[in-house]
C-alpha cells in the first residue's frame, strides 16, 4: 500500500491553526470536506467517533506522531489526511511528548484490513528518522506531498 493510496492531497494541512486535540481533529476532518470526501452531514459524527476512541486510548504513539482514526458508514474507501503542527499538541502520547505530525484515517465499517494496512504503511515510514524530519520541515502542502511521494518510492533512504 502506498501513502498516496489513501492520503487526500487537497486535505493536507501543513500548518495547523488548532492547539488542542479536539480542535485539531475538527480541523482535519473539516479539510476532508474538500471535493466531498466527507459530506457536511457526516462531519460531526466522524469527529465525535474519533474523539470517543481517543478517550478509550490515545493514538499519540510517540516520537511526535498521532494517528487518530475511526470507521464510518459514510466511507466507501479508506481516506486520510496529514497535518503538521508547529507548536505541538498535547495528545497524552505514550512518551509524554507533544504531537507535531498527525495522520487521520476514516475507513469503511466493514474493512478493518484496509485500516491496518494503512497503519502498517504509515508506521513503516515513521521508523525512518528522515521521514519524520522531512515532514516536520515541510512548510507547504506541496512540500508535504513531496515527502510522501518520496517515501512511497523509497527515495528517502540515502
Amino acid at each position, binding site marked *: 500500500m502506498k501513502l498516496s493510496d489513501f492520503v487526500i492531497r487537497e486535505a493536507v494541512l501543513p500548518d495547523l491553526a488548532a492547539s488542542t486535540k479536539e480542535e485539531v481533529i475538527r480541523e482535519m476532518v473539516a479539510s476532508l470536506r474538500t471535493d466531498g470526501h466527507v459530506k457536511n452531514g457526516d462531519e460531526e459524527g466522524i469527529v465525535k467517533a474519533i474523539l470517543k476512541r481517543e478517550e478509550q486510548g490515545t493514538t499519540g*504513539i*510517540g516520537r511526535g506522531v498521532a494517528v487518530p482514526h475511526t470507521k464510518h458508514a459514510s466511507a466507501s474507501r479508506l481516506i486520510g489526511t496529514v497535518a503538521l503542527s508547529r507548536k505541538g499538541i498535547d495528545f497524552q502520547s505514550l512518551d509524554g511528548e507533544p504531537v507535531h505530525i498527525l495522520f487521520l484515517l476514516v475507513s469503511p465499517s466493514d474493512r478493518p484490513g484496509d485500516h491496518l494496512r494503512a497503519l502498517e504503511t504509515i*508506521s513503516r515510514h515513521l521508523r525512518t528518522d528522515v521521514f519524520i524530519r522531512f515532514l516536520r520541515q515541510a512548510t507547504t502542502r506541496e512540500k508535504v506531498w513531496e515527502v510522501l511521494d518520496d517515501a512511497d518510492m523509497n527515495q528517502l533512504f540515502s
Partner: protein
Amino acid sequence: MDDDLVRRQLCVTNPEGLHARPAAKLVQLANQFQCEITLVRGSQRHDAKSIMDLMTLAAEQGSKLLLEARGCDAHVAADAIEKLFVEGLGDLDANPDDA
C-alpha cells in the same frame, strides 16, 4: 546466568485487529518488564516494546502470533501478555461507528 525463554501462542481476537490503540496497550504493558519480548509471525520478529514495530505487524483478527519472552521476568511477562490478548487487548467492544 540462564535467561528463561518462555513461548506462548497468541491469537488476535479483537475485530479491528492490532491497530494503534491495542498496540499501545501492549507496548505499555511490555515496557513494564525487564525481559526481551518479541512477537513472531512467520519469519518476522517484532519488538513488543516498540509501537512502530507492533504496528508494522498489521495483525488482523484471527492472526496467530508467537510470543517469545527472554529474561528474568519472562514468565510473569508472558502470563500478563497472554491475559491481555485473551481479553482482546481492551478492544473487544469496539463498536461499529456511532453516527
